């Protein structure tokens, strides 16, 4: 915490530049993306949005066959229906997010009024509760249908997460997510970066780990192993459990900040959700 505050202060006063020590988010992003481009020179940059299939030609064919009859199609349809459903007060989600909900590229965003990261899932629930409707559960079920529809409407939008330079709390949230990504956690002692950066593309038993570049683009996901759709935070929780770290609350501060960092790192790619994964 202390280091976060001090790095924020340093950033605010431009000291970090003067000392040339800690780079800002943009420099982080450039170095992050370059890391993967160097490691996987055969992968065209825009293809990192396709997760592990961007680096695993053997699995790609099967995945492309799955995408021809996508397992998330029913979710999109159900989501569209829910999206246009009229609330008790006569309004609908369209009153919050427009006719087709194509707002994916606005999230995750920094809310300077409240000093917190707002994700698309959180915004959906806030729209519901503001209109007297019941909020949805955050990891699976209805929330994945609504966001599948909204993501589908938004396909092709560019990832362009912003970290407003005028608000040191935004930088602190980013730094918090960044530190989380690079610190080893859980009894098994893994950082996200261990599997999704330093050994990305390696085999863990029968699983190849995907590059972290592209992790935020394609949610929600239909995952064969789940036999259902899930949100990004559901996936975070799964990776945490695997390393014997107690998962954090879906849409709690820890995961929202992590999403802020992860998605910012994918700036420049295209949003291509919903997705299908093994």
């Amino acid at each position, binding site marked *: 915490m202390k280091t976060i505050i001090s790095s924020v202060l340093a950033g605010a006063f431009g000291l970090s530049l003067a000392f040339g020590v800690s780079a800002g988010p943009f420099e982080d992003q450039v170095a992050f993306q370059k890391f993967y481009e160097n490691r996987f020179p055969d992968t065209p940059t825009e293809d990192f949005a396709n997760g592990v299939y961007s680096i695993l030609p053997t699995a790609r064919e099967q995945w492309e066959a799955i995408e021809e009859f996508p397992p998330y199609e029913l979710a999109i349809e159900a989501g569209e229906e829910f999206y246009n459903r009229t609330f008790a007060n006569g309004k609908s989600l369209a009153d919050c997010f427009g006719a087709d909900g194509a707002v994916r590229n606005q999230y995750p965003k920094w809310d300077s009024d409240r000093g917190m990261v707002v994700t698309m899932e959180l915004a959906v629930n806030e729209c519901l509760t503001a209109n007297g409707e019941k909020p949805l559960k955050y990891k699976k079920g209805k929330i994945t249908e609504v966001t599948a529809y909204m993501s589908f409407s938004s396909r092709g939008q560019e990832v362009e997460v912003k970290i407003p330079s005028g608000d040191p709390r935004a930088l602190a949230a980013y730094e918090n997510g960044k530190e989380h990504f690079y610190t080893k956690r859980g*009894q*098994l*002692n893994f950082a996200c970066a*261990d599997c999704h950066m330093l*050994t990305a593309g*390696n*085999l*863990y*038993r*029968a699983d190849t780990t995907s590059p972290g570049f592209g992790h935020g683009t394609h949610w929600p996901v239909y995952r064969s192993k789940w036999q259902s759709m899930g949100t990004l935070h559901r996936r975070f929780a799964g990776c945490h459990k695997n390393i014997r770290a107690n998962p954090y609350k879906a849409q709690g501060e820890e995961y929202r900040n992590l999403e802020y960092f992860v998605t910012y790192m994918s700036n420049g790619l295209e949003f291509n959700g919903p997705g299908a994964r093994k």
Partner: protein
Amino acid sequence: MKKELLSAMLISALVSPLAIADAVKQGKEIAWSRKKGNCLTCHMMDGGQQTGNSGPPLMAMKARYPDRAMLREQIWDPTKRNPLTNMPPFGRNKILTEAEIDAVVDYLYSL
């Protein structure tokens, strides 16, 4: 170096071959178990199937690690030698008990 060899010899003289065979068998179970060592996630070893490839194949351990303490340390806390390793510190994080680590070392020496 000599001392370690000597003590290893002493230990093997004291412990019956049967007990060692037992420890090796037990060590293999621990190393292969997904709940315990799960070494196959990253290491090719001993003809195991569906192994990962983050770590080097484990073989000829006696020749590579004549010093038992060094081999044990690599399992107890590999981050001491390499802070960037993804190999879990089985001792420091209490993933395995001290006795289980000893058994795994016995097993590795049989490879």
